[in-house]
């Protein structure tokens, strides 16, 4: 926030679209406090019944992985094909496994 700016803090909005599903990131908005953020999120992100529940989280509370570190972070799982069921040859005769 620049000095003297009255800009409200940024909130990240997560919406549960349907009974039983996890909350998923929808977008963000500015609001002076959590309660207003929730009300605004309702108006901004669920105007067409997109949700049954909303979470708002201060954006600054989120720690994100760095795009520059994408490779060292995720590459180690690329060569571990044996973590996937299709790596194993199981005859059809024994049924689904």
């Amino acid at each position, binding site marked *: 926030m620049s000095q003297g700016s009255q800009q409200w803090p940024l909130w990240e909005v997560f919406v549960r679209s349907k*009974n*039983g*599903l*996890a909350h998923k990131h929808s977008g963000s908005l500015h609001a002076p406090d959590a309660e207003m953020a929730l009300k605004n999120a309702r108006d901004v992100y669920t105007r067409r019944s997109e949700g049954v*529940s909303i979470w708002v989280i201060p954006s600054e509370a989120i720690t994100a992985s760095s795009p520059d570190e994408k490779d060292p972070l995720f590459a180690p799982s690329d060569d*571990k094909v*044996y*973590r*996937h*069921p299709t*790596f*194993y*040859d*199981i*005859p059809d*005769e*024994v*049924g689904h*496994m």
Partner: protein
Amino acid sequence: MGETHSLEDRFQAFVEAENKVEPKHWMPDGYRKTLVRQISQHAHSEVVGMLPEANWITRAPSLRAKLILLAKVQDEAGHGLYLYSAAETLGTSRDQMIDDLLSGKAKYSSIFNYPTLTWADMGAVGWLVDGAAIANQVMLCRTSYGPYSRAMVRICKEESFHQRQGYEIMMTLAKGSPEQKAMAQDALNRWWWPSVMMFGPSDDNSPNSTQSMKWRIKRKSNDELRQEYIDKTVAQAEFIGLSIPDPELKWNEETGHYDFGEIDWTEFFQVIAGNGPCNSERLAARQKAHNEGAWVRDAATAYAAKQSARQSNPSKQTHAA
């Protein structure tokens, strides 16, 4: 109109309509308690379940087998973490659950109190123990508690390779030398009955089941799941030329299911009571791991505290050194 419904009645109608219960919903105390017990036991089982398999990591017969086994044990640790987190949404703390496991107060699946004596046991555990666990977990994907259900969906997706790698080991041994085939048969002989017992006591001897089914925590009874598991597994054993160690096992044309012999429930309850072959060894291994890891946790906490002190008081940073 004018009718009053108790909170319990409304809750019951809510779950019967296939709604998922979420952490902020009202729920009966008994529902919460049952879930905390069941989910934490499930988490403990994943964690203790690493031990019998870790036993063979350094002695796996090939680098391929070793990588697979490592990946599997790593998955079990992850599954334990998903489940502890799901239990925490119900208001219990991670520390409390871990304390209960380490003090011996909490239970975990009895199956992990059996020893893994040969490499063939890695096959039998994956095929039979994970097979039985998957049957239970596929059902639990439809449990009424949202966070538990979502953890189960994730676990089932990852678990599929566990059973397949186990069956592959059994298949390879069964096709090998007579000694290797005998080893596979011996593992099946030792793991069959304990895996059949994994579904818990029979329905007429399982007092909590009825309420759990009513609340939609469980969707199938112990006996139903057990029957499905047996029906599925017999054909898999036959396919690789191994025989199920149950002389009374017989296809029943009328019911369309296998009839099977009497389960030794005395053994089951003895193992639960702490008298299985490895109960004390498993608990001791967990306690040792927890105690010997204490300095790592302490160091991480101290580091975090130091970092946040520096951030809140940067002027002191130069003096700290």
